[in-house]
């Protein structure tokens, strides 16, 4: 009696199936890797796009704040090593007092007190954008200080958290760079260099620039 293993049919199946199983497994692993890589790339791209979107939106908001500002107080152009790049400006509290007068049918202002409050110097706030790297995180810090009633109210936000790269690794690069135009003091160039760590090439810096012309003129 032939042993089971000596049956030509069974011996053949074993070898063939082994090869097929190995081949299938290899293909499965290969396809899985491709799939995982693909999804990773997809997620990475989505994160990158979100970071870019956030940067653009922030630059857009900064530009709007510059245009709306009664006075740009400080535009400090410093190397990021000093972690001191600052944009500081006055801001009217339109969110609280409204944007302007409203009129009744006879043309009289109906919200005079709010308009007075809007331009009252004690109600004019200060908004500061500053690049911060505290050792654990790097970010763009927005600090808005407005007076509400008798006391000042401070609102702080951390923007672009850990998306702006560590300045120590890029000592010659400005992370947030605000500069007044050397000739026209009214222009402020805001430039953010973004280095998203999730990017395929971690050293690939993306630059975002915005030039805001202050609208206010005169005295």
């Amino acid at each position, binding site marked *: 009696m032939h042993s089971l293993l000596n049956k030509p049919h069974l011996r053949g199946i074993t070898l063939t199936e082994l090869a097929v199983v190995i081949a299938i497994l290899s293909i499965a692993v290969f396809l899985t890797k491709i799939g995982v890589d693909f999804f990773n790339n*997809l997620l990475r791209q989505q994160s990158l796009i979100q970071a870019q979107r956030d940067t653009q939106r922030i630059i*857009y908001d900064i530009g709007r704040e510059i245009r709306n500002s009664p006075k740009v107080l400080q535009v400090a152009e410093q190397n990021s090593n000093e972690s001191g790049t600052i944009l500081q400006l006055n801001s009217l509290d339109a969110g609280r007092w409204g944007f*302007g007068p409203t009129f009744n049918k006879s043309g009289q202002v109906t919200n005079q007190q709010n308009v007075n409050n809007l*331009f009252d110097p004690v109600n004019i706030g200060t908004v500061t954008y500053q690049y911060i790297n505290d050792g654990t995180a790097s970010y763009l810090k927005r600090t808005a200080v407005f007076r509400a009633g008798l006391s000042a109210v401070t609102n702080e936000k951390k923007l672009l958290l850990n998306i702006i790269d560590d300045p120590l690794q890029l000592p010659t690069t400005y992370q947030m760079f605000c500069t007044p135009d050397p000739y026209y003091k009214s222009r402020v160039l805001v430039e953010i260099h973004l280095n998203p760590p999730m990017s395929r090439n971690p050293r690939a810096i993306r630059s975002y620039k915005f030039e805001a012309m*202050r609208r*206010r*003129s005169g*005295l």
Partner: protein
Amino acid sequence: MNPKRNNNRGITIFYAVFTALATVVLGLAITQMLGFTSRQANYLSNMDRTFRLAETGMNNAIGALTRVGFSAAMAQNQKQSFPADGGWEEWYRNTIKEITKPFRCYYIKTEARRERGAQCYSSVLHSYVETSNVGEYAAAVNDDCWLLQGTQFGDESKIYGLSLRFDNNTSVGRAQYIGSVNPPLNSKKYAANDLPAPDPSSSGFYSYKAQHILIGKHPDYELPQQLPAPLLLPQVTQADLDFYKLLAGPHTTVSDFTNYSAVYPPGYFGFTTNNAGDLYAAHTTQNRHHVYYSANTIKIGHQNDIANPEAAMTKIYGQVLFVSEKNIELHGSVVSADSAVFGSPSVSLPGTGRPDASTAHQGVFITPGDIVITDTFVDMTPNSYGFDFDGDGTVDPDSHYQVIEGFYIAPNGTIQPTSYETRAPTQYHLIHSQLLYFYFKGSWILNTTLATPDMKTVFGGYRSYQYMPSLKDKPPPYIPSLATILYTLEEVKDCGEVIGSASPSP
């Protein structure tokens, strides 16, 4: 039935389902990502465009305010719609109101809306704008503005330049700049930095003034003031020219005034026959007619008469605007009828007693080009004293004093003197260095003062610059104002909240 086949079919179905699911997941992820990206990019670019539209509305409103005044601005078209990128966009001027508290200004509210497909973007711009008389500026230059030694604009005037330079012995009421100032602000040459200054009536004031730059009024002298943003100087665009052409009505046929020794407004109440020296043949009795308009270069003034220079001057009676689509050429002296040159006589104003009458004697020259001072002023008659200044054996002409008064608006150009050195005989050549004097009284709005040759070269004898206070106190009609934007606030609103844009008009 073959079970192996059934098994294969099961595997195939499984793979098919798996592949379909994977495809769906992938498709959803990609679609979401692309959709997300597209939405954000669209939002930012559309909002940016919407802000620009609102800003266009604001500029339109300011333009109307400064050009035609508050009442007429209110009556002008308040809305503009355009088809754009498969949708439409529009700006709408919601409000122009004069407010007095907390400060006096015009409040302008403009709204903008942009629709593309089902998406709608809108914003509102709240602007607080002050308008002022541009005639308050003795000089406003979109370039370097240099007050030469001896320039006494006086404490009623202002000057403005992107950068300013001062010589000693200069005075002005207020000096404004954007870029740089020379001497620097800490210089003791400014009276404000070297106080106390002697009283102007004291004997020591003259020598003090000769060494200093006086800005403001005694004893409160100031330093030049750096503005946060450039002033919006009046412009002479095609729209402005069209506006002046409309104001000129029928008075668009004459461009050569060189034979006139007197120029009156093209229309004024009480006109019956031409006054002496006035050669214009189409006067009307309409007091509102102050503008001579020409598509050609406007020429005015004629050659000096060394025996009677005052008679050779072209006198301007009333407020007369000369608007040229090209240059304006000054061929001689052009002065106000009540000029100090004649001892400041009292001269009646054309059209007095009726609306729109002239309130001062002022020539106003407006051009998108240059103000050209030609080389035709000097009379080559040898002087009566027989002087041979250059020692060439021939008697030279006498000294000539070219007097230019009025308001010169060339915001795209300059004042361009012409050299006499191309003319024969050679006596002309020394005119520059010794015999030609320039007296200016008035105001100019220029793009630049840099011209070749410059005033110093052509009028080498002496140059004097003064301000004409009547331009401030009695401003000429139809002159664009100077707009100062005090504040603007951008407000983002939902489309439904934008009041003025209720009905799209694609």
